[in-house]
């Protein structure tokens, strides 16, 4: 679960991490009032979960409260990469000496967290990573013992700091690590992490992504996790509420299957034969009739879907349960789109019989079914 910048920063402040003074505004007038309160020059930042808002124009500056109100009004009417801006963060403009990049990531290959840091922070960090990867330093953290003070000091030293500044940066990195531990973060990232002319280190931006699998032990995020994220389409939100792994795509062939790998391969195969999938929908292992019916209704309710491919390779899942789910949909709301069903595995004979009784034939081979649904000739 991605947190907004203002949410990440509020958690960080509780740990004593330096963030710029500021406030959150939902209206241009609120933005103006915050500017009046903090004085000086301010930055107005769109609060969105997608990355790249700077390049999209979602960050502006205001030297006077009235100007801040106007800029905030512009940003609040923006949609950035499909995400509508609902709030802006108004923060004091820092006296920047240097922009650093600092993050703590889940390092899958090394099965640990790794600190990534660079003295070339800012909006072009991805170009730096691509063109001169040596400018980003990596420091692995022991997953059992955690980040030790000297881990953070080594990173600070390599970034070129000594004396009091080294100690300040060490404290900040240690606190970012604590933040990642306390909130089970798969990512904590500050870019830019600003060294000010006054010699302080401040997280000018801060992103935090919470590991979804850890949400059960974070009651503090319970309400937040229920909120429909703007990254999720209404159809995805509805499907996920019903316990389906669902991703909306832009084609016209609805897809339902069991098992993430199988469904991904189903999309690939539909693509391979020239079709365009409308979604990824994994009903999971051991799905019962009710679950299948829910999934099918959600898929056929999507107006861009004009035919549906059901691909079941039953292990724990039983073909007769899947078939019953399809029959239930037919009885209750009707089957609204043509259906191609591929079934193999556990109780496949029973499943086939049930579907035949309502006039649906099933195929055994995934390739043939994919070609049929796409409309190519079956080989």
């Amino acid at each position, binding site marked *: 679960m991605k947190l907004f910048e203002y949410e990440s920063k509020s958690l960080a402040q509780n740990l004593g991490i330096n963030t710029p003074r500021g406030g959150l505004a939902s209206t241009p007038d609120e933005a103006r009032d915050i500017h009046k309160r903090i004085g000086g020059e301010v930055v107005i930042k769109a609060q969105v979960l997608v990355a790249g808002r700077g390049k999209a124009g979602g960050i502006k500056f205001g030297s006077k409260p009235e100007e801040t109100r106007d800029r905030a009004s512009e940003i609040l009417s923006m949609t950035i990469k499909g995400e509508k801006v609902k709030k802006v963060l108004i923060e004091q403009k820092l006296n920047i000496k240097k922009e650093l990049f600092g993050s703590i990531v889940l390092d899958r*290959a090394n*099965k640990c967290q790794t600190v990534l840091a660079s003295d070339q922070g800012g909006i072009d960090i991805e170009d730096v990573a691509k063109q001169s990867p040596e400018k980003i330093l990596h420091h692995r953290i022991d997953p059992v013992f955690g980040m030790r003070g000297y881990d953070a000091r080594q990173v600070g030293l390599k970034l070129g700091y000594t004396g009091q500044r080294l100690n300040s940066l060490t404290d900040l990195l240690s606190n970012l690590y604590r933040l990642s531990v306390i909130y*089970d973060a798969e990512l904590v990232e500050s870019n830019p992490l600003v060294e000010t002319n006054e010699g302080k280190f401040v997280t000018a931006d801060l992103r935090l992504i919470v590991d979804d699998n850890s949400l059960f032990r974070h009651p503090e995020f319970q309400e937040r996790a229920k909120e429909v994220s703007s990254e999720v389409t209404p159809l995805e939100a509805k499907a996920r509420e019903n316990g389906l792994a669902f991703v909306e795509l832009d084609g016209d062939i609805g897809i339902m299957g069991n098992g993430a*790998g199988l469904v991904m391969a189903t*999309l690939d195969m539909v693509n391979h034969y020239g079709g365009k999938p409308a979604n990824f929908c994994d009903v999971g292992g051991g799905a019962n009739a009710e679950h299948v019916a829910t999934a099918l209704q959600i898929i056929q309710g999507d107006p861009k879907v004009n035919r549906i491919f059901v691909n079941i*390779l039953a*292990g724990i899942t039983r073909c007769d349960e899947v078939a019953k789910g399809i029959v239930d949909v037919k009885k209750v709301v009707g089957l609204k789109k043509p259906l191609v069903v591929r079934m193999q595995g556990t109780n496949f004979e029973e499943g086939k019989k049930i579907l035949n009784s309502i006039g649906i034939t099933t195929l055994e081979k995934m390739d043939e079914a994919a070609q049929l649904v796409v409309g190519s000739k079956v080989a």
Partner: protein
Amino acid sequence: MTLLVGKHTRAIVQGITGNQGAFHTRLMIDYGTQIVAGVTPGKGGTVSQGVPVFDTVASALEKTDANASIIFVPAPFAKEAGMEAIDAGLNPVVIITEMIPARDSMVLMAYAREHGATIVGPNTPGVITPGEAKLGIMPGDVFAPGGIGLASRSGTLTYEIASYLTHAGIGQSTCLGIGGDPVTGLNFVDVLKMFRDDKSTNAVVLIGEIGGSAEEDAASYIAETHYPKPVAAYVAGRAAPPGKRMGHAGAIITGTEGTADAKMKRFREVGVLVAEVPSELPRLLQQQRTAVVQH
């Protein structure tokens, strides 16, 4: 030699009294696997699926000579269940449980490394040595004994591909799921090492998917070691959009990294036979075999 599991395996099922645990214990026994004990805290002294149940792994080992474990306990307790199995010297430890927090998995894998234990998973269908034994939830009938070593990041897709191979008369030495999570015990490189040293394996099939760098790491390993056995691969998720998690916690393209096309390209560069669709794999393996014979 039998990789990881076989006739010698005497397994404990941790979480044997749950729905999944009980159901799959029955199927594993039916397949011929020796399941010698089960563990569920608070249910010690009872019997499930004809197997004695204990409160702890240690107490199970006082009464049985178990040497492996398969874990079905819910995600919040999986880390400790894994440690308990490792502490008792069980090896391998197969973790079927999904949705374990990444931090728990990191700690568990560090613990396993320290103790020299092999972890398969989490979020894996398990391991099967066709015709001998299985520690997992895969349907046994789609597999057949033979010479292909198969490793995968997915469950059902593994069954799909194994059934293509079996129908084409190509049997398997060992099939295993490395797991669909971001942090897993065995990775493709570990598995390639095992298959290299295994006399009953004469070719390897890797089934990858989007996200992470397990496939790229495998490709580098194959190139660096001049891997002595043919390798074929399929990578799922070419149609997946960036930034969206495709069912598995680990199946997500971040930025421009982890795409299926990049993984397939990397595999091709090092001489791996790459299938465009899963059903192509048997043909690729047969062509490879013919080519070798003609040399």
